[in-house]
């Protein structure tokens, strides 16, 4: 084709009044059509988004606070305001909300590609959530399961001590049981499931390996094609394996398990891939080949067509405090209805304490609350997806709840917001000059602060830590350069945590405050029965054996002080008789971290808590050993 000749200076040749080609009426009409299409698309989209926007995203809690904070901090000068406007427009654009899924669905259907990096597409269009495939760093580094296994073992030991049979049921990852359909180019680490089971076994934890059960199922019965969760057929299979393992299967269940095609199933990965639940573009992809099951009360109908008319069996979690079922299922929302199936096969109520989201041990937080007033369960199945155990060790905010004795290993020592001072930092970030009596606060109250002293001045004095229910004083000797101060709370304290410098002699002291981000714990047994000391105090002791103290070794203790509010004394003793004493004030349930650096090089023998005689009933829920605070 002959190219048009450029004009001088290379200007486009479509000069007004100089048509090189005669325009046909059809071409003219099409050109007008192009203008109409163009302007309609622009103005139409603008109008729809302006007058009929999507509702604001339903953010709650920290997510909401973070979103609002970014809005407030946005400035025109550095372009952040423009970015926030763009984000708000994207979130509220109805046209985007309607057309975006069409593109995402087209990509998925015709190219087997995902519009989102979160979702990986495997063989035959099967979807996988990237963070579930190989844990924290997709294909980059081998995730560790050591710490997860140790944490679970710590919890298991405590539960077993109550006379309960604890059975860990790790659910293999989708990428492991669907390996032939897993996305290519990604390191799957298929041996992790086996290693986790092996490691738990080494710790003495009873486990169930679900992999053989999965192997016996058809692909659609293992996991859902467009969902991150395992299929209900697999849950039914797993329930059978679990009751058989525990030896509680009923030969003649009074309920029946029916296939329930009327029940919907989840497709969360389509949502992650940019195709929301209410988008009609979903219909291009769904084949409805997944099976759903329901436990029903009455005997099977003869006419299968009328099966759904049977009354649904009562959910097994209707137990009351004094009649808790002897069988219990705890775990994650990864396995909804698993409790129903267990109850069906065992023909016995199963307490379902599964808890959605969060850390893989979070649901244990409910255990003590639920069984506080009655007998502990005979069998406790603890189900969790293996990928959640792989996330252990990542930087995330794990909330420590001190109201139960089982999650103490889950220490939340990740910065949730920067430390604030009443005065501005002197230099750099994180360095605070704290005047005598001034405060620094942690925004969310969940942190452990490492304070490093720099600069001159004797700096002798007491640093006291106050939270809503605990006040502890930490001595800072002149020779000391570093201090670890725990700030641990059961809830979002929102500024209630205060670290107070009461330095004597030195009016100011430059310190660097950083947040400690990790803590390895080894579990020990709860305190011994209360005994009365000669000085009139009542004391409980936790005995340690074979524990060598290093610099920044620590004890993490959970105390349930009942209705007591007042002073308490904490003592650590070594094999040589060396004793360190801390005094604090507390109320209710508190967690205390004791830095044992002063005993470095010695062997720890015991940890004691003493309250004045006459204090109402109280106890050491647990005391754990942390080889080193980092």
């Amino acid at each position, binding site marked *: *084709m002959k*190219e*048009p000749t*450029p004009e*001088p*200076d*290379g*200007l*486009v*040749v*479509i000069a*007004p*009044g100089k048509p*090189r*080609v005669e325009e*046909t009426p*059809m*071409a003219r*009409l*099409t*050109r*007008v*059509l*192009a*203008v109409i*299409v*163009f*302007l309609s*698309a*622009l*103005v139409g*989209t*603008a109008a729809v988004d302006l007058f009929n926007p999507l509702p604001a995203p339903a953010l709650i809690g920290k997510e909401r606070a973070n979103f609002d904070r970014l809005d407030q901090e946005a400035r025109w*000068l*550095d*372009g*952040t305001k*423009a970015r926030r*406007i*763009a984000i708000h*427009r*994207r979130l509220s*654009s109805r046209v*985007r909300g309607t*057309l*975006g899924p*069409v*593109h*995402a669905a*087209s*990509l998925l259907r*015709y*190219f*087997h*590609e995902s*519009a*989102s990096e979160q979702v990986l597409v495997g063989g035959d269009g099967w979807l996988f959530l990237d963070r579930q495939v190989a844990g924290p760093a997709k294909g980059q580094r081998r995730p560790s399961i050591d710490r997860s296994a140790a944490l679970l073992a710590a919890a298991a030991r405590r539960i077993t001590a109550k006379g309960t049979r604890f059975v860990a049921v790790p659910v293999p990852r989708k990428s492991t049981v669907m390996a032939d359909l897993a996305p*290519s*180019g990604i390191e799957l680490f298929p041996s992790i499931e086996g290693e986790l089971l092996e490691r738990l076994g080494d710790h003495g934890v009873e486990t169930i390996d679900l992999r053989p059960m999965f192997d016996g199922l058809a692909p659609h019965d293992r996991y859902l094609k467009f969902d991150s969760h395992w299929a209900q057929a697999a849950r039914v299979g797993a329930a059978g394996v679990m009751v058989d393992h525990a030896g509680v299967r009923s030969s003649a269940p009074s309920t029946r398990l029916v296939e329930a095609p009327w029940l919907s199933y989840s497709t969360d990965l389509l949502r992650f891939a*940019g195709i929301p639940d209410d988008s009609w573009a979903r219909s291009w992809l769904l084949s409805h080949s997944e099976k759903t099951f329901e436990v029903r009360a009455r005997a099977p109908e003869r006419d299968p067509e009328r099966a759904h008319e049977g009354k649904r069996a009562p959910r097994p979690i209707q137990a009351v405090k004094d009649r808790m079922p002897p069988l219990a299922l705890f775990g994650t929302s990864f396995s909804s209805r698993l409790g129903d199936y267990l109850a069906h096969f065992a023909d016995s109520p199963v307490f379902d304490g599964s808890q959605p989201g969060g850390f893989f041990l979070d649901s244990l937080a409910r255990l003590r609350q639920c069984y506080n007033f009655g007998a502990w369960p005979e069998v406790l199945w603890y189900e969790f997806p293996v990928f959640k155990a792989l996330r252990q060790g990542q930087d995330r905010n794990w909330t420590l709840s001190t109201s139960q004795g089982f999650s103490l290993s889950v220490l939340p020592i990740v910065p949730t917001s920067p430390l604030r001072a009443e005065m501005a930092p002197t230099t750099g970030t994180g360095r605070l000059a704290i005047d005598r009596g001034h405060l620094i606060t942690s925004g969310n109250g969940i942190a452990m602060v490492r304070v490093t002293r720099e600069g001159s001045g004797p700096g002798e004095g007491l640093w006291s830590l106050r939270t809503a229910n605990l006040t502890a004083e930490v001595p800072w000797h002149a020779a000391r350069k570093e201090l670890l101060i725990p700030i641990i709370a059961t809830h979002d304290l929102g500024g209630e945590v205060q670290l107070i410098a009461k330095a004597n002699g030195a009016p100011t002291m430059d310190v660097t405050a950083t947040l400690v981000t990790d803590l390895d714990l080894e579990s020990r047994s709860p305190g011994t029965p209360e005994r009365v000391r000669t000085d009139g105090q009542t004391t409980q002791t936790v005995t340690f054996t074979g524990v060598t103290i290093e610099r920044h070794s620590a004890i993490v203790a959970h105390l349930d002080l009942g209705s007591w509010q007042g002073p308490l004394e904490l003592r650590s003793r070594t094999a040589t008789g060396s004793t360190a004493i801390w005094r604090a004030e507390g109320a209710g349930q508190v967690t205390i971290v004791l830095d044992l650096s002063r005993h470095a090089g010695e062997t720890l023998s015991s940890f004691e808590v003493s309250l004045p005689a006459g204090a109402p009933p109280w106890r050491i829920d647990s005391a754990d050993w942390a080889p080193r605070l980092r």
Partner: protein
Amino acid sequence: MDDGGLPAVLSSPVLFTDAEFLYAFLPAFLGLYYLAQERFRPWIIAAFSYGFYAWWRPDFVILMWASTVLDYSAGRGIGRAQRLATFTAEEGARRPGRSWVWLSCLGNLGLLAYFKYANFGVDTLNGLLAQFGEPPVAWTAVILPVGISFYTFQSLSYTVDIYRGDAEPVRRFRDFACYVSMFPQLVAGPIVRYRSMGQQLVERTHSMRLFGMGVLFFQAGLAKKVLLADSLAPVAQSAFGSDSLTTVGAWLGALSYTFQLYFDFSGYSDMAIGLGLMIGFRFPVNFDRPYASRSITEFWRRWHISLSSFLRDYLYIPLGGNRKGGARTYVNLSLTMLLGGLWHGAAWTFIAWGAYQGFWLVLERLAGRRTLYQRLPSALRLLLTFLLVVIGWVFFRADSMAQAGQMLASMAGWTGSSAGDVTISGSAAAALAAAAAVTWGLPSTQALVARRSALWMLLLQLAFAATLIALHSADHVPFLYFQF
């Protein structure tokens, strides 16, 4: 460089593909422009252009404003000096207004030197100091203002053109502010010279036909960018981000980048030309099917034409061009290409790319027209030229000379392992095939628009619809030439 291949900046400028531009800025601008009286239109263009630029970093508008004021004043000064000189002309006297040109050059090139090359200079110096065990020079990195290379060149061309007598000084400041800041070509060209815009700023025609042509240009450019360039971006990104590639993977990455760059930049140029036509301006053609070239010399007549002609007229010819003998011609050519490479970015890779291009230009000039190469079949010459261009883009895209070397080694077959090899998705493979088909099977956008074929225009509407749907889905990639 960040993931997108762009230097790390605090925020992105408004892109023509941004929803904020398409659904807010552009309708508002066009509405106001056509509702306003003609005398207010330059103000509207200038105001919207400053808003367009301020969206990225409001403080950098001051920089553009300073450049505008400087060159406007210099232009007036040169004009005044030349008018005075007509009464006092002496034989052999130097051209009047020289000092104003120097001031303009110093101002504009000084801005460019500081914002674009200071970091590079300090890094290079620190590298040298480190070799001798000396402590590095303390330096806070300077943020590169988007489009500074384009608007300083445009602004500079104004004073030089007046000085040379190729253009008259602008009479109204608003027209000059409008010329420097005009948003369609502000941040990534085409580089519009004042002499071709001066008259249009004062007087231009608006018509439905012209507007329609502008829409077609814009739609074509948008489709090139979103459907082709952005689909290829992940493949190029993954290849140039990998430590070990197979030969196939390396070529796949290099080819993807070759097409990505072309469709990204020519797409942007088409959109700029289209926007200009919508408001009655004719901008220079910037691309003329460069990958259909049969030699590197021809390639440079077809690639980024507004830059290559700028370098020719304001650098190569003032250096002496081909008027001072063979050796000097080759030196001038090499120097021009080296500086052209450096204009693209302050990095050794760009200098290497400029040197590479200069080498081939000199070689072709040395060989002359009657060579064995010229007797090869046309298709083979096209293929060879394309291969040379692809190799050149490896330097252009690589983050470092080491990475460029690694990539070229993989392309040559010296490959380590396939651990980090490139995988190409279905949509990227389709985009690659479509890109090749458009590159060699279709005429340029300008030719297609000039053809006025109803079928082509209808097909373009389908592509436009697909583009909008794609735009509403995932995040899109910034225009590559914003970094220059």
